[in-house]
């Protein structure tokens, strides 16, 4: 252990002083890398809001005197360029730039490729937005946790969205007959559909799947997919499309009269009404990847005040309402802050990244959308919010109809530690 800790220190750039009773707090700033899509289709709806939030929170934390008096030095990096580029970048960040922590990744593909590098290269990596449940799950349940000693996921995985959708559909449309799916052709899309389909089979056994389409990420022409879906005549179409794809799909579908016939159920559709604007169709089922919605007020006091401040502050700085990537960014940065402070208490000085990792495990802290808990499997769990899009005079884009918002508590939508989500769903009574 000691040996690895030394090498961790050496590789991870943490302080080498192991074993001393009292450890000094370095005067140097904390190096934090934030990796999001800064270019490409996912930049506007995801990367930029996420990165903005990282900047905003860093700024606030530094104004308050930093973490244990150390200022944060934030380096925003671009997630574009494909999985391979990300592997190389993460390596560089950990081994050469020696960042204290790598907060990032929106695409599940990036996460699947990068998180294993945490233990491999001995750097702390916190996945802040990507969704795939496979990231933290083992090959078969029960699996041993944590999967990665130094790899974390500070937001809940896609299980909550798709289970939430299934529960929501069961509640509002108990007697639909046909569903279809259009999901991007990689881990994110494939896994989202898998969970949704499994949950539907369990909750509404006699609903039949009439079509599943797999457009590639960054597809520009959905016309063929749209008419293929319309041809299959489902009642509801499940979709985990995100980023530019979601916007493009919606616009083209509008043009082809898609929404006149079919209702969409977006597993993470929350940012798009704001992106598309007033044209965005009403009565679509939209999930918020948690309870990340600017009109949602968390029950507990601390979170509620945070929410009020967060929405106002973000609106003030960037003229928009925070979308769920913003909340995810907040969670990642504050997970690190809280973990460091907790570990420092125990260690009496600046902690090693092993100690930070230990502190982050089982950590609970308030966030704008409610308290967040990071479990022993190094993955956070959250409640999930689902609703209908509805145009109101108050906003220039459809919001979630306040009267028909459903919140499913974490326990109802997250598999227990060490159990694969799919197995858990199948074990439902």
């Amino acid at each position: 252990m000691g040996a690895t800790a030394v090498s961790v220190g050496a590789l991870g750039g943490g302080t080498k002083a192991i074993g001393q009773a009292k450890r000094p707090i370095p005067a140097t700033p904390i190096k934090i890398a934030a990796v999001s899509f800064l270019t490409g289709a996912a930049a506007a709806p995801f990367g930029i809001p996420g990165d903005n939030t990282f900047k905003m929170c860093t700024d606030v934390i530094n104004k308050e005197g930093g973490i244990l008096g150390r200022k944060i030095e934030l380096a925003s990096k671009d997630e574009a360029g494909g999985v391979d580029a990300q592997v190389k970048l993460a390596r560089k960040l950990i081994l050469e730039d020696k960042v204290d922590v790598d907060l990032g990744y929106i695409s599940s593909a990036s996460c699947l490729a990068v998180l294993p590098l945490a233990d491999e290269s001995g750097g702390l990596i916190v996945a802040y937005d990507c969704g795939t449940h496979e990231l933290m799950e083992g090959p078969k349940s029960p699996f041993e946790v944590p999967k990665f000693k130094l790899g974390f996921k500070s937001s809940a995985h896609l299980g909550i969205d798709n289970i939430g959708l299934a529960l929501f559909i069961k509640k509002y449309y108990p007697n639909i007959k046909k569903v279809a799916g259009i999901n991007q052709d990689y881990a994110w899309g494939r896994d989202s559909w898998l969970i949704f389909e499994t949950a539907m089979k369990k909750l509404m056994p006699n609903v039949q799947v009439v079509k599943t389409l797999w457009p590639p990420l960054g597809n520009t022409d959905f016309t063929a997919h749209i008419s293929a879906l319309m041809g299959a005549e489902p009642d509801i179409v499940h979709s985990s499309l995100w980023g530019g794809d979601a916007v493009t799909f919606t616009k083209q579908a509008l043009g082809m009269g898609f929404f006149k016939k079919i209702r969409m159920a977006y597993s993470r559709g929350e940012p798009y009404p704001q992106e598309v604007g007033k044209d965005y169709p009403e009565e679509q089922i939209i999930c918020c990847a948690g309870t990340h919605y600017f009109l949602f007020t968390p029950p507990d006091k601390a979170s509620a005040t945070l929410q009020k401040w967060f929405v106002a502050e973000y609106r003030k700085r960037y003229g928009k309402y925070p979308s769920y990537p913003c909340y995810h960014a907040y969670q990642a940065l504050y997970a690190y802050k809280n973990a460091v402070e907790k570990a420092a208490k125990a260690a009496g000085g600046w902690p090693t990244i092993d100690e930070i990792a230990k502190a982050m495990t089982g950590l609970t802290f308030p966030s704008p959308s409610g308290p967040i808990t990071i479990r022993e499997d190094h993955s956070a769990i959250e409640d999930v919010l689902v609703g209908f899009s509805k145009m109101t005079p108050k906003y220039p884009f459809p919001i979630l109809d306040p009267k028909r918002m459903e919140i499913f508590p974490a326990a109802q939508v997250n598999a227990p530690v060490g159990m694969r989500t799919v197995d858990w769903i199948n074990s439902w009574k």
Partner: protein
Amino acid sequence: MWVIYTLNGLYFAALLFLTSLGLNIILGVMGILNLAHGSLYAIGAFMAAWTIIQVATKAPASFLFLSLLSGLVLAGVVGFLMEKSLIRAMYKRTLEYQLLLTFGALLLLEDVIKMIWGGQAYYASAPFDLLGAVDVFGNVYPIYFLFVMCITFLAGLFIWFFMGRTKLGIMLRAISLDREMATGLGLDIGRLSTFAFVLGSGLAGLAGALVVPTTPALLGIGMEPLILAFIVVVVGGLGSLKGALVGALLVGFTRSFGIAIFPEIELPLLFLIAGIILVVKPQGLFGR
């Protein structure tokens, strides 16, 4: 629905045809495979998107279609500069240099676009929304797609007439048939090549400008069209107008019906067809 599938196929084929047309002319006349063709397409797309965004608020709706012109012109200009500065030096060089140069140009232009327009996506669906939709046998279909088909049809008609009937076109054909002979006839190869390259680039730009109201202008937007246009040219036959048309229709319908019927293997199928045709008929369906 089959009507719609067919229309989708036609629409997709139309865009491809336009893109491949430019690639084809350049390849035919200059014997150069321009790997940067996709970037010219992208330039057209960004320019058009930018124009639409500018116009949408200030000028009457009908002006929105200035975007097509702007895309075509800018791509043409870039093409002109490219030919004068780079391609010009390549005529006497061997294949590997020609291909690598255009490959370099591709990398370069991708980032030039990034420098000019930034990394953001440009949403410019105004013309698409403006034209609205019609009823086709009980199915809603956007008029804009039909508009794209018309434009492409006209462009194709124009090129066909130009290549077959006008003096300039016939000279270009002469070059593509036999460079030496053409030189012997005293044709000004240099000028004509420049012209061909500009024409090809302009067509790529037009295609980009046409697509942009239906999808945001993005970095790398030209990559997929390049590959598909490339398949079209290969399948149809180098430098063959008829080939480009048939090839485009083949790809368009394979995609439209492929996605509707067997979504899992639509893409491999495309390359499989191309591969087979190349093996059986290396010069393409209508190649010389």
